[in-house]
């Protein structure tokens, strides 16, 4: 192969480097990714960005995964100069998820954090303008969460909280448009 492909740094290697500089920042280290302590997220991210070895100047992407008991915020960091990529996860509380914002470190995180906030409800502390990105400002709930369909209030989808809609008229099940005439 003439071109070496991107090296995926194992999480243990990242944890080693990170743990040496910031003890207590790493909660767990796996082969694929490293899990950070939420409290020291910002410091750890700042370290990884400016560290000459990890050199994570490029935030490839960030997203979030609802793990039922917690919400993982996933960051893929990369170094373009060294051509490696690694994955960092931060667990957040499932009911009131909140982690530190990395938008002051990477401009590219501003919109992505708003997206995660919008769809998963993770509040990023320190974000300059944390408002909904895609959905309507008064939209109830955060649709990418696994419990979105069972919002408080007993409604299936939460759509009944929209104005002008009677309770019980909206549901998760499919109904034909003219259900009145022929359908049972």
């Amino acid at each position, binding site marked *: 192969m003439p*071109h070496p492909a991107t090296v995926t740094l194992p999480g243990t290697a990242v944890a080693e480097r990170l743990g040496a500089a910031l003890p207590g920042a790493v909660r767990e280290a796996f082969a694929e990714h490293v899990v950070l302590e939420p409290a020291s997220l910002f410091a750890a991210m700042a370290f990884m960005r400016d560290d000459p070895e990890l050199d994570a*100047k490029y935030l490839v992407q960030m997203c979030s995964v609802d793990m039922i008991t917690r919400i993982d915020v996933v960051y893929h960091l990369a170094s373009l*100069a060294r051509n490696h990529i690694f994955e960092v996860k931060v667990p957040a509380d499932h009911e009131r998820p909140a982690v530190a914002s990395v*938008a002051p*470190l990477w*401009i590219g995180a*501003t919109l992505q954090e708003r997206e995660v906030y919008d769809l998963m409800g993770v509040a990023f502390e320190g974000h*300059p*303008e944390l408002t909904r990105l895609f959905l309507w400002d008064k939209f109830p709930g955060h649709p990418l969460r696994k419990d979105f369909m069972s919002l408080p209030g007993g409604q299936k989808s939460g759509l009944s909280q929209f104005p002008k809609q009677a309770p019980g008229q909206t549901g998760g099940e499919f109904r034909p448009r003219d259900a009145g005439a022929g359908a049972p």
Partner: protein
Amino acid sequence: MTGALLTIITDNWWDIRDLSNLSGAIRDLVSDAGGPGWLVYVVAGLLGAAGIVTFVGVTAIINIWIERRVVGRMQSRLGPNRPGPVGLLQPLADAIKLMQKEVLQPKLADALVFTAAPIAFTVPGIAVLAVVPWGRNMTLASLDAGIVFIFAMSSLAALAVFIGGYGSNNKYALFGSMRVIAMLVTYEIPIVMSLLGIAMFAGTMNLDGIVRFQEDHWLFLIMLQPLAFVIYFMSSSAELNRTPADLAEAESEIAGGYHVEYSGMKFGLYYAAELINCVTVSAIIATLFLGGWWAYKLDEIVPGWMIYIGKVYAVYFLFIWTRGTLPRFRIDQLLAFAWKWMTPMALVNVLMVAAEVLIWEETGWSAGVLLPIYVVLNNALALALIVAWVRVFAPRFERFPDRPRFYSTIDVPSLPAVAPVQPGTQSQ
């Protein structure tokens, strides 16, 4: 009376060489029938005016088709081709559609101004045509202040655009109308200055006189005044809101600009008036620079007004061509162009012509000797000035090579350890 009128028309229908013969015959008829002097005058005036308005109406309709077909061909597509043979009925279809459309008028718009603006936009373009000679003895109003009349009328159109845009109470229209005024105050100067040389050579501002000068001296003024032609063409395309300078409507930036709120027939008027104004400017250029109805020996064979209309459409094609080819300037670039190139060039042109005419008058050499020298001299000067300006004053694009660099492997420069952090730029 009516019978006699019919006879005159049927007897003279073949006389297409000079339509003024027809008009003269009718005038004679009125005066022979004992009509008072004012009636003769009114009849002749109305006839001429009716003729011009008919031309304008036909032009406005034909030009919709011409412009769309020609630009379509330039853009490697067909253009309108469904209504009628080769789409000839497209203007009619457009007109019917526009008439039938519901007229929307924003509640917050100033109703009087909103309605008056498209009408006021159409009037000057037609009124200017009063002073242009359509053929030998075929000028409706042979004004001695013809050129000044043209300036006075043509700047009115910009004011109509301004009041229409400002009266719409729309922000895009506001931007558009403000741009129109900026362009008006800037481009009026090169326009006015560039025609000074023509007035000096011809010794008159009468458009008949200018055509006669070209006929007498056996040349088109574009040869003698190439710089003035370039300046006038560019400035008038700015005044017309045509593409290199269509900042007032700039549909990719301000979504239509001054006419964004217009619909139905009022929009149709804007649309038609744009084409009429374009033909009017072409008519002025054809008269001043291209010899009007005169074309060496050709006008003895072909009727002068036909030659004239042919020239008008040739210039109009130039306008379509620039429209189909060029992108748009930014407003500051356009205005800087006018102030920093066109105005000084027009001044230089005036001085040049002043010197030339002085030599002509003082030495008393014959025009046959002097004018060819002037032609060569002026063309060389125009070329030299354009090249010099491009070299000296134009932005130096050579600062950066045009071609990108090529890499066959990835190569990321080492950046400083701490990248610039700009938090909160979104919510300043």
